[in-house]
């Protein structure tokens, strides 16, 4: 943020916190409505309560941790290919 510039909603830290906790609330709501929806699953395990949510959460955490480990091996300086 620059001096004398208009202050945006997201410039305030408490609003960023609102967004963060909003994601938690949304996830909770999606679990709460699950009993109201008839699931016609392709596989039996999809009928487990909250399967897709848990799967998405675990998948993404695993993805990021694996990618982070991968970076250690794969990273090179930005001009790696430009060097003779």
């Amino acid at each position, binding site marked *: *943020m*620059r001096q004398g*510039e208009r202050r*945006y909603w*997201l*410039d305030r830290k408490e609003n960023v916190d609102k967004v*963060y906790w909003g*994601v*938690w609330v*949304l*996830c909770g709501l*999606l*679990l709460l*409505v*699950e009993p109201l*929806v*008839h*699931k*016609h*699953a*392709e*596989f039996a395990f*999809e009928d487990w309560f*909250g*399967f*897709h*949510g*848990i*799967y*998405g*959460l675990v*998948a*993404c*955490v695993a*993805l*990021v*941790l*694996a*990618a*982070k480990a*991968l*970076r250690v091996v*794969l*990273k*090179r*300086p*930005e001009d*790696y*290919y*430009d060097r003779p």
Partner: protein
Amino acid sequence: MTGLELNPAWTLLLGAALVPLLRGRWRSAWVVALPLVGMAQLWLLPAGEFGRLAFLSSEVLIMRVDRWSSLFALVFLIAALISSIYSLHARDSLQPAAGLAYAGSAIGAVFAGDLLTLFLFWELTAVTSVFLVWARGSARAYRAGMRYVLVQLLSGMLLLFGALQQLAATGSLRFEHIGLDGPGGPLIFLAFGIKCAFPLLHNWLQDSYPEATEVGTVFLSAFTTKLAVYALARGFAGTGELIWIGAVMTAFPIFYAVIENDLRRVLAYSLNNQLGFMVVGIGIGTELALNGTAAHAFTHIIYKALLFMSMGAVLYRVGTINGSELGGLYKSMPWTTAFCIVGAASISGFPLFSGFVSKSMIVSAAGGEALLLTYLVLLFASAGVFHHSGIKIPYFAFFAHDSGKRCEEAPANMLVAMAIAAALCIGLGVYPAPLYALLPYPVDYVAYTGSHVLTQLQLLAFSALAFAVLMRTGIYPPERRLVNLDTDWIYRRLVPGALGVLAAGWARAAGFLTQVMTAGGRRARAAFDRAAGADGLFARPWTTRTMALCIAVFLLAFLLLSYR
């Protein structure tokens, strides 16, 4: 009227040739009019086969108009129109000319009814599109373009050899279902696989697309790989190997996408991941799966173009597209931000956005065939694509920490192009019936069931939660100015390095041999000089007695040698 003249490919190819002759508004009007004329032609074009010509002992078929080819031609024309509008701010005529010729070549290729015509247009897409990379004007882009066009031409060569094998075996060049065990099948499969960016054959895409101009990448993202998807669907539907290939394609690029700093390269990795979904659909080969592939290619071209357009606008205004240097741009570019979010929601498959109505067909087809592992990989990839394309792209470019960079909003022509694409993303997502009506097979599929919507929303919301938590706890790997090694390392570092070692070794060996031979030669010369020199053995007068003795020795040797 033969129907042949209604091929939009001619309009775009010939029209593109005239682009450099026009200036200013005339050129703008011309490049926008060409795809529109193409659409009108497509509208008038009846189904059927046109342009059957005798060739050698066989025949070629320049145009085969059916549901597959019409669908791809339509979305290619939409992409050409959007990209043309997006290119209007560019002062040079090269980009719209090359882009429209490239689009025309791709349309010619999807209409091709035989492998020879396909080969010609296949190569034409390569040589026209490389100018979109070279238009960047840097030495780096020049080298990337060279690598790109070499890979593309290699794919074309394989296609030609495969076509000739088929001709030799069957006497026909017709492009029908080929299969891996068909004559020429493996070569043609490899040719399509290169262009479709199969795993380990993929890296030409991530290498070249992010090096093109902001306009070039939008054109590039639409045609080459989806032409390959079309060709695979025609030639190799139901080939089981494609399920595995596609599943790997959906999963492995997203690991790279998470740690990549160049945001257009992130999109190139996610393009690869989206192609994986289509390839899985082709491998499954049921009507639902193939419909899913066709629908996903259609929606994907539009939302991918939208994402590349938004990142291109950032590159154009800010001058960099590295995530490590961006952030907070929503203040300067609110419209671009909004359009980017629409594209991000579409690629992530949010309900009411276009990706949802097409990707779910492929995932359902995998589930319906009880392919458990494939199904789980596709779910993982769906979560992953939201993670890196849906969140990472808008987050690092427009939000994250404020980079302090301030710029103008994107030019009006870019905003119009993005608005059209965004409207299509939302329109197809809310009301998919017109798209379903165009698909190759009758559609008996309902995307919007409570179960689909809820499970997809859960998957996405919890993925977002994972991102939010990892970001807040600082576990998420920060954007850093790094490059990550990929398979291009093999031909950019390993092979040149190995050749360098070989060349150095050869130079050393050659030096040693020269030395040995020079020294040996010098010694032989000295011996000769001693023998034949002024005072040498052969220069001296020999006595008669010595001569007679010598001759006697020779005769004796001769006698012994001939004696048996």
